[in-house]
């Protein structure tokens, strides 16, 4: 084992015998572009709605529920796709979320929610996972579009203005998801959940 490691270490340290420095630097540079670009392109593909609803679990349960909500259809035609709410936009968090999503691949392979009954049985658990995630990251995905700084309280109704101007400030530990649950999908049995 140790010998083998030593062999590879020596191989790495030795100067190249056959290839020129130019080939190695330029080749490395080009290969870098291709691999990095390819990686990011593949990553973006997994971020599209087409990809998400490619599986029937996502198409026939959460996607159908989304369709009735204001985040799917509204006056001005601005809409949120799956990844807008379920995947953070900046790189580090996005990669973190993508690694978590390997659990979802597991669920897909073993069909954990592949019937309406199974989905219904897991609804509370799945919802809770998203609530916890959004609570922990201070509703990061909501804030991609809904900026606290740009909210005009005078245009909101008094009760909303009151809640937003107190609950969302620095010295409060509340965040969007504390009140706004079930805005894009149906809620599970809410017994014992405070809203």
């Amino acid at each position, binding site marked *: 084992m140790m010998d083998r490691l030593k062999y590879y270490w020596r191989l790495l340290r030795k100067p190249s015998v056959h290839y020129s420095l130019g080939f190695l630097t330029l080749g490395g540079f080009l290969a870098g572009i291709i691999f990095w670009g390819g990686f990011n392109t593949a990553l973006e593909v997994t971020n599209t709605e087409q990809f998400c609803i490619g599986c029937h679990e996502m198409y026939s349960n959460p996607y159908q529920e989304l369709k009735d909500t204001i985040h799917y259809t509204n006056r001005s035609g601005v809409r949120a796709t799956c990844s807008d709410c379920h995947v953070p936009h900046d790189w580090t968090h996005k990669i973190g979320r993508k690694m978590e999503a390997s659990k979802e691949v597991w669920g897909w392979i073993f069909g954990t929610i592949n019937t309406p009954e199974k989905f219904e049985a897991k609804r509370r658990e799945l919802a809770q996972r998203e609530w916890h995630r959004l609570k922990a990251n201070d509703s990061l995905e909501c804030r991609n579009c809904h900026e606290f700084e740009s909210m005009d309280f005078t245009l909101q109704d008094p*009760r909303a203005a009151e809640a937003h101007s107190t609950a969302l400030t620095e010295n409060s530990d509340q965040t969007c998801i504390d009140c706004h649950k079930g805005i894009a999908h149906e809620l*599970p049995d809410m017994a014992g959940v405070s809203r």
Partner: protein
Amino acid sequence: MKTLIAFVMSVSFALVAMAQSPSMSPPSPDGLRKGGTLGETPAAPAIAGDPREVKREVRNYPEQPPVIPHAIRGYQVDKRFNRCLDCHSRESAPSAGAPMVSVTHFMDRDFQVRAEVTPGRYFCTQCHVPQTDAEALVESDFKAVDQVIREQKQGAGQ
């Protein structure tokens, strides 16, 4: 004989063509969409749009379920969750500034008052509806109870 068959055929074709053409087919019975013929498909009237935002409205008679003075688009009311009770439940009504559901909603079929809204009165929109400014589809000579009483008094006084 041949000419007769040709004549009957052409007449029946003409009748079929007439019945199917939108403008020449017979007038349709006056339903909710007035006018037009059987062959025509009249355009549906425009959807009434968002409920009007109003203050609480006076009931027309004492047992009338109060109408909903706000939009309820996308409200989930099912076995799992009741969005209306988010504000109108006993616990949250004061802080939400909403009227609490009346105590009748807590009564079971034996008029026994329970701790929660009973299943019989759980589905709000069976009785309570938002109001739009849509024109009435059919005429109505409905009178509020006060008006009936007032008119009766006037009639007795004469």
